[in-house]
């Protein structure tokens, strides 16, 4: 613990001086190395690998990209780091086994899925207080907050539902069934639609937020890949509403989808067991975490091709990028 907190401080000054020349930074959580890999998103070189708590999975940035939040699942806490200096700032209470989480646009409310407890915990990141715990289905996993701040949605992997939480009252107001093993939810930037992946169901379902009814369901088929191996997990939607990128797990591909017509445009081959995808804030690159290969792939959105593979730690899980 001592080492972890001291080291970033020592390096902080050196990093501060050089950070201004970085194009941007992508952060990758390495589930079995208890580290975060920071990558320069211009040169695509690893800048630094720093120690965090045990089994880091969910990872996110606040709205001004100044703070990095990490779910340290086996340490039962959320850790906050300075996104520029990588300096440790503080721990937040998280409940048991935090896996994924989502930060309200107000930068205060953090919604955390506690996988082993069938609970969503709501934390005030300023006061470190647990505001509420909300019982949901078995193995809560995916967490999303709508950009307009009205909704928090959690997925429960074994109950196979989306749980809709009103962010004002912090009450569970609706539950919708979805295909087997829902892993991730992503709101469209206008907050009108919700995309949700079902890993074992092999589908991505799009819901209308107002009615919470299904609008469309996307199926995938890759030549030469058994349908059982197509297991959608991570989803990213570009700001301009053109594309969706879906990580397809052991199919080792990222699907490129027309976000308006829901047509699958292409399948891009990445590394093995791809779970996470992250867009750079300028929508130019998608980074995918390839758990079994221990690397990340970089997709150039304009060219729609993989331009780079970067080795990171063991079992990279989540990825997020700052400008």
């Amino acid at each position: 613990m001592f080492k972890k907190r001291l080291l970033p401080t020592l390096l902080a000054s050196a990093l501060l001086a050089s950070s201004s020349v970085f194009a941007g930074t992508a952060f990758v959580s390495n589930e079995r190395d208890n580290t975060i890999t920071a990558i320069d998103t211009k040169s695509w070189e690893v800048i630094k690998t720093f120690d965090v708590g045990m089994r880091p999975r969910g990872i996110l940035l606040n709205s001004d990209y100044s703070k990095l939040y990490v779910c340290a699942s086996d340490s039962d806490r959320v850790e906050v780091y300075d996104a520029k200096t990588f300096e440790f700032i503080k721990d937040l209470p998280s409940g048991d086994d935090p896996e994924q989480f989502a930060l309200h646009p107000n930068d205060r409310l953090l919604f955390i899925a506690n996988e082993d407890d069938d609970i969503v915990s709501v934390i005030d990141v300023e006061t470190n207080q647990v505001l509420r715990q909300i019982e949901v289905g078995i193995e809560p996993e995916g967490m999303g907050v709508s950009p307009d701040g009205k909704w928090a949605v959690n997925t429960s992997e074994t109950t196979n539902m989306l749980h809709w939480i009103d962010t004002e009252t912090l009450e569970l107001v609706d539950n919708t069934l979805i295909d087997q093993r829902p892993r991730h939810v992503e709101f469209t930037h206008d907050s009108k639609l919700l995309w949700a992946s079902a890993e074992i169901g092999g589908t991505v379902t799009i819901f209308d937020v107002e009615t919470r009814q299904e609008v469309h369901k996307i199926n995938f088929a890759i030549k030469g890949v058994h349908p059982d191996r197509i297991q959608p997990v991570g989803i990213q939607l570009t700001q301009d509403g053109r594309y969706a990128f879906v990580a397809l797990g052991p199919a080792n591909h990222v699907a490129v989808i027309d976000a308006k017509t829901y047509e699958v445009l292409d399948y891009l081959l990445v590394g093995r067991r791809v779970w996470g995808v992250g867009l750079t804030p300028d929508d130019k690159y998608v980074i995918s975490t390839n758990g079994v290969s221990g690397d990340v792939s970089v997709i150039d959105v304009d060219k729609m091709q993989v331009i780079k593979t970067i080795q990171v730690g063991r079992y990279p899980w989540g990825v997020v990028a700052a400008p």
Partner: protein
Amino acid sequence: MKTIKHSLRSSVLSAMTLLASSALSASELDIRIAYLGYLEDRGPVLSNSFPEPEDSGLRGAEVGIKDNNTTGRFLKQRYHLEALQSDNPEQLLEKAQSLYAEGVRFFVANLPKAELKALHSQVGEGSIIFNAGSKDDALRVNECIPDMLHTIPSRAMLADALGQWLAAKRWNKWLLITGQHPDDQAYAAAVKRAAERFGSRIIEEKSWSFDTDLRRTAQQELPVFTRSRDYDVVIVADERGDFGEYLPYNTWLPRPVAGTQGMTPVAWHKVVEAWGAAQLHSRFEDHAERWMNEQDYASWAGVRTLGEAVTQTRSDDPETLREFILSDKFQLAGFKGRRLEYRHWSGQLRQPIPLVHPRALVSLSPQEGFLHPVTDLDTLGFDAPESQCRVK
């Protein structure tokens, strides 16, 4: 951390009250599921350091009920387990009959073949029965029990899982050592079938009949006993765990041991931790305070199959549920990396088979390259043309 955890828990109660008002609109259902577990007298075994848990299967059914109820509370569905374990088959059948008379139509049975047949003849009409205990191949091939669903893999599935892996490694020459019990003979038969299917050869089969105490004499007895023409691997068929545990490292040639001991094909094991399995283990261990074994898994899968079917159909009618379970809409997320379904001939749950040693996962079958026109999962066990059973 303790104090935080405590304060976290205190707010859970208020959260629970919220649930009542937020359930999906649906009519209320109360689903009673019977669990019947036969406590087999396994007889004296030489290797007795690690006795099998007495509640194997039962604990899995209990966790399945909990899982179903967590989901069910959003849908106003409640699940109840009516469980009996006994070493007296008569008592188990009587319990089944009295539950049937009360209207129970769902049974998870951890019983041997003869008792499964008796159970079906007495309570089978209009019921759904899961076989979560018997690996008997005949039940999937020519001694079909009408409409029975099998969540535990058959011996043929396990042997094929091992046979494929050995074929992939090109370890094609097997020395087979078989115990005296009829179950050992049945396991050996499945191994021989696997050898033939996947191009391997049993270079010699030896029958273990020694009754010395191997804890003291394994080093003397087994090296000599495993002398044979050159073999790549020793396959042991000793289901009760009598002598097999003493084979690894005691073979004449420096060869690995697989089968019922050494590296074993299993339905489930603690070392299976990918695909979210770690979460199932932690739920199970919180509940049972021991590791989850394959009988627990099979019973859990039976209870969860019902839960999934009830969730999707919003019905408690056995016929509606059976139809759904055997439709292409049914899928069970069974923590094995892919969706699980039932075979329409034998009623067998299709599933990948982990190959494990006591501390780690070695591989998962089907192995790559073993192809099948429908699903590679059907390269394990008896396929439709080989079986006289039809559940659909």
